């Protein structure tokens, strides 16, 4: 098993640090899967059972690293799976925004470590400083790999482009002070509604003119006492009730420069938020629906 990689460009280093920060906000632990052409960050919910992971992030190595060498477990199993503390990783990468280069390698010290060597410019001289972080990792044995397979989710009923994440997060954070659950409505007509209902208030924030990527309707509402939304054909609307805190955490990903964010909904069951960046990073978050 071998892994070493080098990053020298400022843009990708900043993005990489941002992505790791988001992951550390979502979970204390994460899995780093090293494959020949892609790095994966995977966060799974401890007690989720067969449910998809909470987060699935793909980073194409060619866009980020100038050097990238790896040798997997054996000829048949060409990947490396490492378990590590996402907080340790994000704290080590705080200085990456001003660094000249980052070297990452898998080392054997007292325990297996992901060693980060960060080269920092000096403000007073031409010389640089080297900062080394050793992050203890657990090498995940082969028999447990299946727990971190690519999520196999049901086909979404709708995929709709999200408005600016920052705007969305402000609104969700205001709603969170009033209720712990948010209902997300999406219609084939390009409308997205965030709604909370409590004894005190019903608050709905409605976005319109959003691009609909895919719609697999009609939606069956026969089993629910759904109230109709503004004279729209209900068979073209689906919804899902989710935890407001989880939604807000994903939305803090607005720090990562992104091209677009898609929201896919499996009616009443699942919300998949997927953020695409310029460098072809895909950051996906899976929030399962709350059903009473």
């Amino acid at each position, binding site marked *: 098993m071998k892994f070493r990689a080098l990053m020298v460009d400022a843009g990708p280093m900043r993005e990489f640090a941002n992505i790791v920060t988001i992951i550390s906000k979502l979970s204390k632990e994460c899995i780093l899967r090293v494959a020949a052409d892609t790095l994966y960050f995977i966060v799974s919910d401890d007690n989720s059972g067969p449910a998809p992971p909470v987060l699935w992030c793909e980073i194409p190595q060619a866009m980020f690293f100038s050097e990238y060498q790896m040798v997997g477990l054996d000829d048949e199993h060409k990947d490396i799976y490492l378990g590590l503390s996402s907080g340790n990783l994000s704290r080590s990468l705080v200085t990456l925004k001003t660094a000249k280069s980052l070297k990452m390698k898998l080392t054997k010290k007292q325990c297996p470590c992901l060693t980060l060597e960060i080269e920092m410019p000096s403000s007073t001289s031409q010389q640089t400083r080297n900062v080394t972080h050793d992050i203890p990792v657990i090498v995940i044995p082969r028999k447990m790999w299946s727990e971190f397979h690519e999520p196999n989710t049901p086909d979404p009923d709708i995929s709709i482009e999200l408005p600016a994440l920052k705007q969305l997060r402000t609104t969700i954070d205001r709603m969170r*002070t009033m209720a712990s659950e948010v209902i997300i409505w999406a219609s084939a007509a390009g409308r997205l509604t965030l709604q909370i209902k409590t004894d005190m*208030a019903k608050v709905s924030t409605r976005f319109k003119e959003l691009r609909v990527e895919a719609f697999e309707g009609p939606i069956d509402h026969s089993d629910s006492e759904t109230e109709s939304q503004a004279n729209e054909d209900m068979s073209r609307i689906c919804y899902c009730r989710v935890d407001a805190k989880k939604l807000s955490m994903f939305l803090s990903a607005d720090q990562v420069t992104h091209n677009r964010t898609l929201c896919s909904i499996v009616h009443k069951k699942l919300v998949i938020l997927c953020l695409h960046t310029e460098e072809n990073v895909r950051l996906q978050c899976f929030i399962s629906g709350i059903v009473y």
Partner: protein
Amino acid sequence: MNWSKMDDVNSQYYFTASMDSGKTLCSLLKAIQFQETAVFCALPEGLKLTVEEGKCVQASAYVPSDNFTEYHVRDDVDVMFKISIAVLSECLNIFGSGEESSLKMYYRSEGSPLLLVLQPQSVNNVMTDCEISTQNADSVLELRDEDSAEVAKLVLKAPAFLGLLADLERSCDVIELHLSPEHPNVSIVTYGMQDRSCIDVPKSSDMVQSFTCENPVTLKYQLPHIRLIMKALAISSKVVLRCSSNGLLLLQLKLEKEDQRQMFSEFYIVPLLDD
């Protein structure tokens, strides 16, 4: 909506109002938000929200009707109900404090929810509508006593007065206010565990804009009650203190807005009586 239709709406609803930006209203509400619920009262001359702390402090936010681009109250009914002020201010702030958003309010009839429609000024593909439940209002305390004469009146600069209150020791329970026509005119005394501290403010001080007091008077209040006005002071330019002969303290704070319109907050604070 054309005009005739708007008139229809106005006559159907007990109360309707609209405003270009709900931001100032929101910060005014936050300044008196020391209780969960407020009494919402739409009067022909303006909107008033009142909260009470025990039977000792009564705070009101008052927004004269000229702050609204449209303001309509039916004159044959009383528009008065209880509402969660926390929920109301969160709703007004739904697009964040960095965003100016226009606000419309509707209240159909007794027992109806208060409807709010908010639209940010910078983006036009989003809007929020809120239905906030309302309850019948209990009567609001009438603290003002017409028979008690005013014994002192001070006009102070709000930021300076806020600084003065912030300097007072937090752990003190009681604040004593000595007012006198003689120097040092105003003296504020607090008693701590082992100490007594005193701040003198002569009427020549920069923070005093006007001072009226015929006879020396000493008044005592609970400091935590006085501290309730600090959030309102932080957003106001001027504060008027009025003491009446029965010890009741009235503070009137003026909030200056960019558009020259004014909003106010008002606090009645009941004195501590010697036992």
